[in-house]
């Protein structure tokens, strides 16, 4: 190891600048470049070009079917003053917070339970992860029927225990928590699977030591299991955060952003601007801002994950 490191260091310091040898190196490097070309072209075509094009569109006043004109940063300044956009941003953050925290808590709880040994554990675990396999639009349609204030099964179930009927997604006050309920049902199993994987990889020694020291179950969970499983949980939280920020299909199918604009998240707002009102320039500015928000969140979470890695 030490020798090879030494070998690697030497040429960087004393490398002679021979043109003949350098020419060959260039040719060889050229060959290597050929190997990365397919990936490079793909990245340019599907990531870099669309991004540059989106930014370019965002500085134009461009509605489908109308003349295009250069606007500069006006689309962005309009966004800052657009009450509806600002409200949709706050709503997105509120929805994301609920749709990440609740599945994280329930997912960890479920993982701890399914980590225990009990009869039919495999079967029950299989049933528990079934929502993950369902298509979001199909789920949304089923939940729409369940939410119906007069005819839905949820109010029927509440009536069995003497709770008055609720309006669920048909009220401004309850629409976001009701939509989060769908998300929690759908995605808690994902958190459970990731955390369960982490639990399976935990070393047994700390538990043996804790038992010898007389620790109870809660102390073992809080001081050993949770810190050790935290890096895995952070992975789940990162995935869930990005996913919740992007949530569109279930919200659109169930409420289309209503009642009024009570469940209009950035994605719904964006969809309306781009595909209902055909305001391509304005919508592109929303995309750029939204992408920036997602990047900031991702970096923040990645930083937090680094902090939780075992050392």
């Amino acid at each position: 190891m030490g020798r090879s490191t030494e070998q690697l260091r030497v040429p960087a310091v004393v490398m002679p600048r021979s043109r003949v040898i350098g020419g060959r190196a260039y040719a060889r490097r050229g060959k290597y470049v050929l190997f990365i070309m397919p990936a490079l072209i793909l990245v340019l075509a599907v990531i870099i070009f669309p991004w540059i094009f989106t930014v370019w569109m965002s500085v134009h006043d461009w509605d489908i079917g109308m003349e295009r004109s250069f606007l500069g940063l006006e689309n962005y300044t309009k966004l800052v003053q657009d009450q509806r956009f600002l409200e949709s941003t706050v709503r997105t953050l509120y929805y994301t917070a609920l749709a990440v925290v609740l599945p994280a808590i329930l997912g960890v709880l479920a993982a701890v339970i399914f980590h225990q040994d009990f009869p039919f554990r495999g079967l029950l675990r299989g049933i528990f992860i079934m929502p993950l396999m369902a298509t979001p639009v199909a789920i949304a349609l089923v939940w729409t029927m369940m939410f119906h204030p007069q005819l839905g099964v949820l109010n029927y179930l509440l009536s069995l225990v003497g709770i008055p009927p609720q309006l669920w997604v048909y009220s401004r006050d309850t629409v976001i928590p009701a939509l989060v309920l769908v998300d929690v049902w759908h995605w808690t199993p994902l958190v459970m699977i990731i955390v369960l994987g982490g639990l399976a990889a935990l070393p047994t020694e700390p538990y043996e030591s804790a038992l010898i020291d007389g620790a109870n179950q809660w102390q073992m969970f809080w001081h050993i299991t949770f810190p050790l499983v935290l890096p895995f949980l952070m992975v789940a939280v990162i995935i869930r955060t990005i996913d919740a920020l992007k949530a569109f299909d279930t919200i659109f199918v169930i409420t289309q952003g209503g009642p009024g604009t009570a469940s209009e998240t950035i994605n719904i707002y964006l969809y309306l601007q781009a595909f209902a009102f055909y305001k391509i320039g304005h919508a592109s500015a929303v995309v750029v801002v939204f992408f920036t928000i997602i990047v900031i969140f991702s970096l923040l979470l990645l930083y937090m994950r680094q902090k939780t890695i075992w050392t």
Partner: protein
Amino acid sequence: MDHYRRLNKRVTRRDLLRLGAGVIGLAAVGSYSRAAAPATPTVRPPEPTKAPPATAPTVVSTPGDTFNWKRFKGQKIEVQLLKSPRGDLLQQHQKEFEELTGVTVGSEQIPEQQLRQKQAIEFTSGSTTFDVTQESWHVQKRLFGKGRWLLDVRGYLKDPTMTSPDYDWDDFSKAGLGYATQADGRIDTLPYNIDYWILYWNQGLFQAKGVQFPKTLDEMVEAAKQLNDPGKGIFGFVARGLKNANTPVWYSMLLGWDVDGIDDKGEMHTDGPEAIAAAEIYKRLLKDYAPPGVSGFNWGECQTTFSLGRAAMWFDGIGFSPPLEDPRKSKVVGKVGYGVPPAGPKKQHSGMFGVGMGVSAFSKKKEPAYFYCQWATNKANQARMLAAGAGSPCRNSAYKDPQALAKPKVSKEWVDCLLASGKIGRPGLPVIIPVTEFRDVFGIALTNMIEGADPAAELKRATAEFRPVLEKSERS
């Protein structure tokens, strides 16, 4: 070591010169290749505002030529249909067209929202994958007209070699012809289907309380009040409360004041006394006599509520008869009454919404595509639509067709209501380009009203918000 040294060698001027020469050489080879290559069609860059010529292509015909369905035998066209029972009908009988003309048809049905997006994107790009498509007049007429995205078929209609002698243009209803004609006189769609808004009423509930069918909007409010019985889970009225979907409800009521929310000159009448009065009725009906949560109801929830006998009246499009009369889906089979919308203080109108069929201006097979449109809107297909209860055809002859009337899947009362609505039809939404944004802005205002907001204040706010959008679209 040697290898690593070579890899880390810096790029010299000579290397750069070599690289530059290589690039120039490649460019030269590329140019030569392009010049030497046979002429092939190139992909056109997107030109959103560049329109194809407005006039129909010149048809080569000589005196004595006659119409021949087989004229374009052997060609293949792509047809894009709005997903609906009407689309099913056309696909079921597609073989008939193929045998008649020898033209092969590839057709697909696409749900409304997705179809509109696909059309906008493809038309804007200046190249369409379809030769024939359908246009929702109430949403897309001005946009399609402005972009000249569909072929003006007046040339074909006048050409005896292109239009079948039995096509009978005058057979179409006035409303259909009006919708199919652009403001500048171009005809870019053939009339296909018109949907009128009607009042569905539960005859059993009306009889039980001895209430008469309302003749005016005020009577409708009174009837809703009398029939409303939330304790028994019965509500006097139901209609769309969800933003965007709810705008036609209010707009159709406004027609009773003989007022269009936005008139032909682009003037807005959306915060005047008539608009406020119509909104007051909308608010009262939905706030006081509709089921809780109605502010989130689209037509689906309304249909469920009415079909389970939970609402005495339902104000919506005429196309819901088949599910309401289907015993597997409805508890009100045989009890549903179909009535024209009650009159307002000045007029009685039924809000109308329609669909036309046209040929893409970018199609390379315009002639066979026009043949398909002609076949799809002919008398036989329009009568089929009525007989199947799949929609309300634009041809007057369909409603006199003995075969269609002998086996309709809907009641005679429904057909009578349809005919009566046809006589009082008037566009149920303004014919403007940003109509979806109009629905959205005013839809939010209407939803706010259901939740208690003042109609005058909400309409004033919505009008102020929408005015610049309208002005921009009219200006551009």
